[in-house]
């Protein structure tokens, strides 16, 4: 099996190299024979997908067959590993995850090449760019991180097992989601670069890639929050985001990708920001590669960097080459990216998008700087200096608050310019509502002058209310117009409204989801925790809860042994439940792992960790966290996902009446397209 896997990987490399080279020659020559060559290049790209898929299937079969003659399977699986984790072996280690990256890229390329009839020439350019990226990953797989490398010496009877941190259900879906996001940004980048190289007239490439970009963004969003939920549910420190380099690596392309999703509307609607969008989509692709590099190379220490290897140099060169290639084509063709309109007013939808983009990029740059600072300081001073949460929070929180202001304000502003009267008309009631929320919070005891984190929490609550109210007002206003025409009730009219412009109103649902998510995050300053050695019958109090240790128990299975604490949870005098924080010991890897238990309500999470025995006293230690409002984060994410799904649905058709054409003398021609 290993030989078949190795062979098809080599064949995939040959096919993708052919797809890249023949595709390039066909596009450059443009004579009669080149069209047939271009077609063979397209088919070679499709065949690449079949070969990489075959390689991935072979690797998964080897995992299920416990084929420990393959080094990768030995290092990331064992005989008693449950079946879902054996399947997840594909992306559990460096070689497998690079194969998975390559598979997803080939799959995206496969779909793109099948849909080439939409615009054969534009798709041919995009296909060549994707083939180029594919060649890099297949070179890595064949020569630097081979997933089918065989074990030397005598065959081991069992594998070393999967990292216990990865033996959690969400870990089966978190990496694929994240990778679908990372890899997916190659597609809009490929179209953007293709459009730039061929000086493609107009913005159709944006139209073509709109859904790709939204789907990719949705996957990356899911991936990031599944990772946050995994960290919360498994790592046992009571938090969901630690500004770890690998977490940051996933956030950076998300930030630039989100900025791109907004600013690209200006290009579509007004022919503006073409240069900015080109760099933004390149930065998003580049940061996604950088994220893979950070996760896989181990260049910066992280709890998530599951590998230490020499592939960093390969990635380094690839990042340099892609930057140089993009810069070359940009400088050669930048005249094609002339803006068709200028910013007419600072109070307009365009300017709100512009400021939103600047804030996203500022946040991204800050995170990039903080993430690489240990490496930079090592080069400058000889030792690594890491930056922690206070550094990131000092920039990210004010930026996030300003972004919320723009999220609320943007939909209320008109394109081109907005008068003060229009602002007052649209903004008054949501602003009063937000002020009322602030007042209620202050009356209920939040004193913003006591602590900066309370101030941020108050602002976040008010702005989340503002965003929610503007979204609601947009739906109600639009619903009333439809209702006036159709006679439907308001709710049915709002559903109709959603169908009429799914992208806009889906986007508003996403904004509402973000507001809900922010409510969850603003509970963080009010987190509390307690820790105690607890024998039978011992009690510990935290907030309104009293925890009573009932007993401890043990359990064994083939994969791990575990100890459980049985803790009764009382609120006042009433028992409201029993929780079972657990500590596992995985046999194959000889590693221990805590499994926290969480009692989640809309108001707060009670989070218990069994930390093991105190080595001095031999008594078990229980740590409890009381984290307010966390559930709202996960609810917010679900709303964001629903909104993204809605935005992907095609609009219902509408008839537009426009003025009859009249001949216009010597007006400036509509830009580009020549």
């Amino acid at each position, binding site marked *: 099996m290993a*030989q*078949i896997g190795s*062979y*098809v990987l080599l*064949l995939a490399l040959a*096919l993708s190299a052919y797809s890249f080279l023949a595709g390039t020659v066909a596009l450059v020559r443009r004579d009669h024979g080149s*069209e*047939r060559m271009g*077609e*063979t290049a397209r*088919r*070679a790209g*499709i*065949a690449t997908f*079949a*070969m990489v898929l*075959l390689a991935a299937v072979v690797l998964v079969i080897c995992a299920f067959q416990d084929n420990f003659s393959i080094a990768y399977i030995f290092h990331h699986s064992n005989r008693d590993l449950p079946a879902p984790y054996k399947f997840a072996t594909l992306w559990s280690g460096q070689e497998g995850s690079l194969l998975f990256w390559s598979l997803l890229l080939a799959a995206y390329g496969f779909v793109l090449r099948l849909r*080439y*009839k939409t*615009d*054969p*020439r534009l798709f041919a350019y995009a296909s060549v760019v994707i083939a180029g990226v594919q060649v890099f990953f297949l070179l890595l797989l064949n020569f630097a991180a081979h997933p089918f490398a065989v074990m030397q010496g005598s065959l081991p009877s069992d594998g070393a097992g999967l990292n216990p941190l990865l033996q959690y259900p969400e870990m089966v879906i978190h990496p694929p989601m994240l990778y679908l996001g990372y890899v997916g940004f190659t597609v809009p980048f490929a179209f953007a670069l293709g459009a730039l190289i061929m000086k*493609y*007239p*107009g*913005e*159709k490439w944006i*139209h073509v890639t709109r859904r790709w970009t939204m789907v990719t963004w949705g996957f990356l969003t899911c991936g990031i929050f599944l990772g946050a939920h995994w960290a919360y549910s498994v790592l046992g420190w009571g938090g969901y985001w630690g500004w770890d380099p690998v977490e940051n690596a996933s956030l950076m392309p998300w930030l630039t990708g989100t900025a791109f999703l907004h600013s690209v509307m200006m290009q*579509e*609607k*007004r*022919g503006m920001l073409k240069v900015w969008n080109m760099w933004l989509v390149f930065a998003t692709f580049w940061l996604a590669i950088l994220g893979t590099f950070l996760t896989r190379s181990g260049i910066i220490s992280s709890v998530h960097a599951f590998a230490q290897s020499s592939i960093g140099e390969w990635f380094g060169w690839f990042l340099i080459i892609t930057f140089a290639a993009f810069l070359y084509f940009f400088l050669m063709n930048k005249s094609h990216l002339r803006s068709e309109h200028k910013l007419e007013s600072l109070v307009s939808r365009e300017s709100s998008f512009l400021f939103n983009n600047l804030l996203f990029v500022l946040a991204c740059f800050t995170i990039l700087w903080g993430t690489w600072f240990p490496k930079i300081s090592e080069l400058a001073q000889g030792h690594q200096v890491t930056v922690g949460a206070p550094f990131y929070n000092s920039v990210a929180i004010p930026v996030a608050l300003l972004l919320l202001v723009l999220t609320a304000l943007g939909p*209320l502003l*008109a*394109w*081109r*310019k*907005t*008068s003060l*009267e*229009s602002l007052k*008309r*649209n903004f008054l009631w949501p602003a009063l509502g937000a002020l009322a929320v602030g007042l209620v919070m202050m009356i209920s005891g939040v004193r913003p002058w006591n602590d900066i984190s309370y101030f941020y929490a108050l602002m976040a609550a008010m702005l989340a209310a503002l965003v929610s109210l503007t979204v609601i007002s947009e739906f109600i*206003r639009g619903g*009333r*117009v439809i209702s*006036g025409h159709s006679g439907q009730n308001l709710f049915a009219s709002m559903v109709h409204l959603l169908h009429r412009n799914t992208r806009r109103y889906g986007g508003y649902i996403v904004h509402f989801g973000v507001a809900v998510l922010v409510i969850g995050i603003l509970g963080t300053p009010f987190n509390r925790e307690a820790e105690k050695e607890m024998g039978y019958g011992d009690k510990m109090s935290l907030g309104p809860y009293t925890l009573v240790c009932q007993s401890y128990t043990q359990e064994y299975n083939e994969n791990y042994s575990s100890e459980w604490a049985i803790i009764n949870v009382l609120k006042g005098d009433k028992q409201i439940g029993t929780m079972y924080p657990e500590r596992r010991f995985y046999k194959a890897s000889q590693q221990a792992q805590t499994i926290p238990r969480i009692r989640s309500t809309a108001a707060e999470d009670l989070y218990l960790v069994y930390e093991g025995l105190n080595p001095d006293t031999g008594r078990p230690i229980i740590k409890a966290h009381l984290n307010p409002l966390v559930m709202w984060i996960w609810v917010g994410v679900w709303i964001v996902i629903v909104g993204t799904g809605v935005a992907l649905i095609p609009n219902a058709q*509408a008839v*537009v009446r*426009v*003025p009859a*054409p*009249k*001949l*216009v003398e010597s007006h400036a*021609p*509509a830009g*580009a*397209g*020549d």
Partner: protein
Amino acid sequence: MTIFICAVVTLLTLVYVFYLPGELYLGPEKTRAAYLRERKDAVYENLRDLNFEYKAGKLPDADYQSLKTSLQDEAATLLAEIARLEKNPPPASRRAKA
């Protein structure tokens, strides 16, 4: 067996990639007129949004009239150029299609 499977996979792949019976789909080449039609569609969509926002009460009359006029001027410019190009089309490209 392994060699046989690898040989079959290679053969099938080569046939799929290089055996191209019949004509190829090349699609129409994008012209400036096609580009202008896309821009026209974008401007119409902007007009549609503007009308809807006005009906929703988001814009005062003065703002609406001013924005509508500028969008209509833009649409008229595009339509005029499309009309000119349709009257005097540029020479046909070699990219015809089967």
